[in-house]
């Protein structure tokens, strides 16, 4: 049976991609953020996961408002990043795992979720930046991708509880898969930030620390706020924490925080990176 070895949670600000392209990892502005990936690089080198299931939100590359999904699951054997409007496209393709995608889809539909099934899709910086951060360089990514998009763009957004439940269903699906893949779960986006309106530049360090403190031991604490609470607390893009909440839901066993890095600001964003290890829950 497949095993989930852990979870990686990280901001995905497009500016990070630009910093990577310009080799600014040791620039004083960027270094405190990039340093957060040192333990993740070591952990990935040790764990060598076969597949990454990535909860993220599309920012207007693959989905438009004519057909805006609440949840969408990729079921392709290859994905690509494409120009999102500013002329940058990451070169490395992402290898998919369509068979496992379909297994997840079958499982979550049977669990009363209503996903969009995507046999062909592009993925945006919310997938590409975390992959570039985790596996820097030019080599082909060693880990396959299954992207799961959550609507954080057009309200009504799914509730935090609904996202957490989706994550749980995805976690159970992975663990019931007959292959022997080792899977890592990603949640990307956040933490607090707001790009638009008179409150642009909003940051809420207290709320972010509340999330970081509870993510490993008590993720249900994050469900006490509804989506509009989160918009008010964390900003209209801070609601991307829904991706983290879903990803944390997929870790249904024993969880331990291995690394956590919080650095404000990166661009307009309170940036954060967390690594959790996961193992089957031992019944005492």
């Amino acid at each position, binding site marked *: 049976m497949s095993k989930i070895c852990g979870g990686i949670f990280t901001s995905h600000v497009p*500016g990070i991609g630009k910093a990577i392209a310009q080799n600014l990892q040791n620039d004083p502005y960027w270094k*405190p953020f990039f*340093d*957060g990936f*040192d*333990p993740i690089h*070591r*952990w990935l080198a*040790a*764990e060598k996961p076969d597949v990454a299931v990535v909860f993220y939100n599309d*920012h*207007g*590359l693959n989905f*438009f*408002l004519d057909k805006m999904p609440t949840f969408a699951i990729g079921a392709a054997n290859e994905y690509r990043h*494409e*120009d*999102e*409007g*500013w*002329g940058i496209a990451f070169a490395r393709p992402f290898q998919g795992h369509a068979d496992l995608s379909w297994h997840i889809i079958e499982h979550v539909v049977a669990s009363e979720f209503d996903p969009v099934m995507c046999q062909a899709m592009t993925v945006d910086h919310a997938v590409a930046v975390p992959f570039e951060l985790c596996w820097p360089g030019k080599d082909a990514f060693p880990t396959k991708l299954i992207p799961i998009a959550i609507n954080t*763009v*057009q*309200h*009504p957004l799914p509730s935090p509880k609904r996202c957490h439940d989706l994550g749980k269903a995805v976690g159970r699906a992975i663990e019931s898969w007959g292959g022997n893949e080792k899977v890592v779960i990603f949640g990307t986006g956040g933490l607090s930030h*707001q*790009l*638009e*309106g*008179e*409150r*642009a*530049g*909003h*940051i809420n*360090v207290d709320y972010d*620390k509340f999330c970081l403190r509870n993510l490993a031991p008590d993720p249900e604490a994050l469900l006490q706020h509804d989506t*509009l609470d989160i*918009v*008010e607390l964390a*900003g*209209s*893009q801070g609601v991307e924490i829904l991706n983290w909440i879903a990803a944390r839901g997929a870790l249904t066993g024993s969880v*331990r*925080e*291995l*690394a*956590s*890095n*919080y*650095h*404000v*600001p990166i*661009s*307009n964003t*309170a940036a954060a990176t967390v690594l959790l*290890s996961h193992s089957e829950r031992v019944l005492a």
Partner: protein
Amino acid sequence: MAQGKRAIPGTLVFDGDAAQAGYALNAMCYSFNSLANRQAFAADEEGYMERFHLTPEQKDAVRQRNVLGMLAAGGNVYYLAKLAGIFGLNVQDLGALQTGMSLEEFKAALLEHSVTETRVAQDGRLAA
């Protein structure tokens, strides 16, 4: 128009009302994923806006590079960011424009929240 909506200070929630109002503007911005479309817009802003049936308010806001005006006319920031790119504006420039600050003031306001906190567990897999 939905009633009894929750007000969040300084924040326009992009809901069904906004999405209805902004559809044409957002559709135009979504088209800017393509370089050819960005060039067509740059070559003829008025013609391009007409092709996407922008409302008069939307056109005015675009002409004036008025970000708050675009938002009030239903623009969604994820799509507007693509338009901003054509104008050479990044998200920090947008922040300054919307808050009435200079770029330096906006950056300084962000730095007021400055904090770095790092934890790394003792674990063999993390050894350098």
